[in-house]
């Protein structure tokens, strides 16, 4: 984009730029802290309504609730940093849940692994189509959304209770030292991909493509490899989300995760990752997820009349983003 005028002053944070440039550091910390501030403020506000909200129990519930969104948001973050978007994640998670629930009794752990592979492959396929046929990821994954949920419905047009071997995944619904295992899994994935983004060639390429795809191309980066890989990652995350869903409900359902798509995207953006790509991090997403989880449940817990719930939620989303969005890195707000 033309660098005319003051619109685009170089931003500071989140480009993994080695070390982190001088101009960067300051604003980086500032914009990095904003989401945390919002989270704290939100929690305090809600616990003012219902003090029990800060109890260990509530927080554990919150963690458990946010674990699925967390997994979805992790995959989404990678794709968003790449400059794309993945609308198919929730549908894919639902599909996975059905597959796992169906195959678990016979194949046990094999079913889980198989389902995860399928999810990753489907993700990769979407990335491939997007990168090679040059169709906006928005459209490809939109089509995917229809395809995967349609297939899920075709496989099992209703809830599939896990008929056996539940213990293979049951541990995901349990706690260790009071921390929900599913949440721990989410954190593990977060750490894994954080390293990949910050230290591996893959991550560097993801950021490069997100910031300036032309330059990446002209530097000989095989952009379609990177994109395929990134979408495979988001596919894998969807799969894991699906598995956790099965663990939570001890059954698979073709629409179980669908309602989590927008919240997970919201989490990524509230964290301050720029939807225009190239700027953002998984650390930010973690905060975003917490904020969204608190909003989803907290608003209700605070005892607000049901009809006002969506209003409060909407207002909070806008306010949260208004505070957390890293304007410098977006430059132009689309």
């Amino acid at each position, binding site marked *: 984009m033309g660098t005319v005028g003051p619109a685009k002053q170089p931003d500071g944070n989140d480009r993994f730029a080695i070390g982190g*440039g001088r*101009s960067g550091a300051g604003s980086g910390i500032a914009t990095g802290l904003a989401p945390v501030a919002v989270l704290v403020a939100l929690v305090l506000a809600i616990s003012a309504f219902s003090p029990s909200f800060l109890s260990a129990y509530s927080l554990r519930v919150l963690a458990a609730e946010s674990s699925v969104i967390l997994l979805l948001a992790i995959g989404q973050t990678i794709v968003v940093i790449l400059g794309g978007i993945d609308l198919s994640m929730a549908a894919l998670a639902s599909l996975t849940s059905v597959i796992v629930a169906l195959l678990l009794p016979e194949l046990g752990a094999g079913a889980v692994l198989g389902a995860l592979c399928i999810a990753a492959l489907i993700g990769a396929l979407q990335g491939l189509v997007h990168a090679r046929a040059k169709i906006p990821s928005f459209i490809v994954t939109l089509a995917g959304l229809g395809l995967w949920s349609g297939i899920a419905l075709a496989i099992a047009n209703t809830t599939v209770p896990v008929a056996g071997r539940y213990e293979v995944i049951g541990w995901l619904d349990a706690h260790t030292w009071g921390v929900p295992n599913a949440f721990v899994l989410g954190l593990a994935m977060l750490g894994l991909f954080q390293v990949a983004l910050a230290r591996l060639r893959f991550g560097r390429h993801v950021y490069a493509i997100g910031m*300036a795809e032309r*330059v990446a191309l002209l530097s000989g980066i095989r952009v379609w490899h990177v994109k395929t890989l990134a979408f495979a990652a988001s596919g894998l995350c969807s799969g894991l989300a699906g598995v956790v869903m099965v663990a939570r409900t001890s059954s698979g359902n073709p629409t179980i995760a669908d309602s989590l798509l927008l919240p997970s995207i919201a989490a990524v953006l509230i964290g301050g990752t720029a939807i225009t790509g190239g700027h953002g991090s998984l650390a930010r997403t973690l905060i975003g997820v917490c904020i969204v989880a608190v909003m989803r449940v907290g608003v209700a817990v605070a005892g607000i009349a049901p009809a006002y719930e969506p209003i409060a939620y909407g207002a909070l989303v806008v306010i949260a983003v208004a505070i957390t969005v890293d304007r410098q890195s977006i430059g132009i707000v689309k």
Partner: protein
Amino acid sequence: MTAVALRAEGLSKRFGDTDALRDVTLEVRPCEVVGLVGENGAGKSTLLKLLAGVIEPDVGQIILRGAPVRWRKVRDAADAGIGMMFQEPSLIPGISVAENILLAHEGPGIRLGIVRWRKLFALARAWLVKLGMTISPAAATQSLSFSERQLVAFARALAVEARTREAPILLLDEPTSALDDRGVAAVLQTVEALRTRASVVFVSHRLEEVLRVCDRIYVMKDGRCLAEREAGTLTVEALEQLMVGHEISTDIARDAARPHVAASVCLEVRELSRRDKYADVSLALRHGEVMGIAGAAGSGCEELCRTLFGIDAPQSGTMLLEGRTVALRDPADAVAHGIGYVPAERASEGIIGAMSVAANMTLAHLARFCGRWAIDRRREQDVAERWIERLRIATPSATTRASDLSGGNQQKVALAKWLVGRRPRVLILDHPLRGLDVLARRDILETIRELARDGVGIVIVADSLDELLAVSDTVVVMRDGRVSARYSIAEDRPTRQAILESMV
């Protein structure tokens, strides 16, 4: 004391912790062409943007026709008759040429919010004619060639004339940088013509142009105004001295004999053709040879370079790399084969502004900086610093983001990208010197020679013939997509004239 059209008084501007402009004062008199010269990052563009109201000064004031003014938005300046042509490409792709020229001041072209196309086109055509352009005002902007766009941008700057009864003031930032000699001629001619009714501030790196059209010349360096001279009293050499501050040799010296040009061919193309771009081009580039390709806009030399790098596939013809036929599916293939490419549009294709200098340098060869798993940042750092030193890149550190560097230094980074890894076989340079100052120019030309000495085959497309002649072993001239002449500098050094004739 004659009347003053526009006067900048003690303007200062900081970006972050760098002083872009420090207490600059300059004057533009009615119907005067004022030249503004200086190295990259000297603050010329910043000064113009202040005058045009794109950015606001921290200190100092602007006095227009005797009255102090403060621009709240660009519009204010434009309405007062100040038009600016930006260095960066600044046209909107999706709309017609006419709309671009009259953007934001369509005048009678839009009545009560309703567009009157016939009127709009008529108005726009008038400006195009002034520049001797024949393209239709209804043409879609994205269909124009780079230099055509540059001229349209110029036309847009001219168009402020229609907005004020006063004599307009035009700020031209590198109006000629992207143009071939014909385009340059047109622009200079127009500037001459403008002198009768407008004041112009003219920024260019081509000092001879500046001397030709300007009455007075301001010389800037490091955000300061070093000197003000009457153009008549100056020579190019003197001007360069003022700019650089120390003696430099005029013609970019070339080492006479070039023993290092090997006999072995590294890159060869046979009857390469691409529909309405270029046709049966055959070239042979030897190891250590610098091949300059000269050609007016639309001659197809840029397109040829892009094909050599695998960006566009040729319709027919073969390409051999060290004797073996290669088919490049995409730039990645080219890179894998050891071909490097420095694009003309630095900002959008050369570097990633938001990334650190080091990251930019290693982008193309990241694999070489990876341990078993992760990127070895220390090694990356070291290598980057080595090249920063070697190419004399002016940057606080290797971790500075590339967009904070001046144009010349950014170009060096873009070049370094191909040097940090294993030495490339072929390096393709598309206008590597565009808009660079003397020093940067010299550094880059030297690097090119060094590479040639190490046996790298180099293809270079450049703005000015002098540059081509200075660095090339062979010069290939293209016209309308075909090779119209070849010269081997060693044997018969062609005159500028000869080349120009085979170009047009």
